[in-house]
């Protein structure tokens, strides 16, 4: 029998760590994907995710809509990622780190790998707020209202960021399309 997210949240709130683990596993793929795409490297993503999971457990009492726990988990993760981004600016390692390393160690030998690298490179060239909005809207498929709650931004501001992100990505990838 499959428990709903809300049921798992309620059990987790009562101290059932196993239910919390199950809940996280359910949403893990999108949480990981978001963190890696936003931060551009796995190490930072792992730290942000670890932080987020610990905080989420501690803050479960403040999850007021258990059936929307995915949104709630993302809000925590978005904030952890923003903290990590500001640290990236101060430290040398940045969004392109993994990419640079992979380029140095091996040339892409498949069409698929080259394509993936182009996308990662283009994404890393977006300003962080545009990257964040684009990923939440077009990859994680939240509504603008939800993204507003996750990020604290207004819907018009988010739409503008997404628009600019789309324009820029099309520009950056146009050369690849033409190749």
């Amino acid at each position, binding site marked *: 029998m499959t428990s709903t997210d809300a049921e798992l949240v309620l059990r987790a709130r009562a101290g059932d760590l196993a239910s919390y683990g199950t809940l996280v596993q*359910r949403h893990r793929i999108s949480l990981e994907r978001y963190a890696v795409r936003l931060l551009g490297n796995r190490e930072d993503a792992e730290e942000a995710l670890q932080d987020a999971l610990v905080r989420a457990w501690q803050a479960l009492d403040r999850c007021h809509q258990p059936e929307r726990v995915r949104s709630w988990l993302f809000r925590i993760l978005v904030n952890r990622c923003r903290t990590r981004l500001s640290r990236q600016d101060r430290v040398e390692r940045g969004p392109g780190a993994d990419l640079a390393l992979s380029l140095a160690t091996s040339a892409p030998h498949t069409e698929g790998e080259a394509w*993936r690298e182009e996308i990662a490179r283009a994404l890393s060239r977006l300003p962080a707020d545009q990257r964040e909005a684009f990923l939440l809207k077009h990859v994680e498929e939240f509504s603008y209202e939800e993204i507003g709650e996750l990020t604290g931004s207004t819907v018009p501001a988010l739409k503008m960021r997404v628009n600019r992100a789309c324009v820029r990505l099309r520009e950056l990838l146009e050369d690849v399309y033409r190749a």
Partner: protein
Amino acid sequence: MALGVACLLTPVRLGAQDPRLAVRLPGGVARSVQATIDSATADGLPADPLVQKALEGWSKGADSTRIVTAVRALAGSLQSARQALGAAAPTADLVAGAAALRAGAQPALLTTLRNLRGTDPLAVPLSVLADLLTAGIGPERAWSSVREMASRGASDAAFLRLRDELVPGTGDRPLPPAVERPPGSPLPTSRDRP
């Protein structure tokens, strides 16, 4: 059949999204697939094989149209298998029966096999039939071998030995050359650009 009973006892919440689809497929794809699955389960078909088919397609990089088409095709085959094998047929039998039908077996053969086997489970003989047909063993030879063994009351292990004997190379095939999974979608060429 214990497996069939387990399926009946599992509460199915029609209309609720399978969490595996919700987590791993993008929203639009998950919804289309779930709609197909809901329609199948409303007819009494098992959901899990359909969920697995959707997850298979997704993990292989198929687009949503292909995934939904594959899930629908499987639902159709499961439906035909259930008509041939009876409403009480457990899921494992339906899955193997659907595979046999998709490999070219006629529904009437499934019914014949069920009658020959009585209450014994059919998943292995049906699966072997599917394998023989897929491997290119002629339909008459494939069917006559399976039917003959079923008439003799052969065990599941005996069916598997039959398949290993008839399908060339099973068990000692060298590693096939690497086939790369195509990227999620191909690089658009200049002529494809809108």
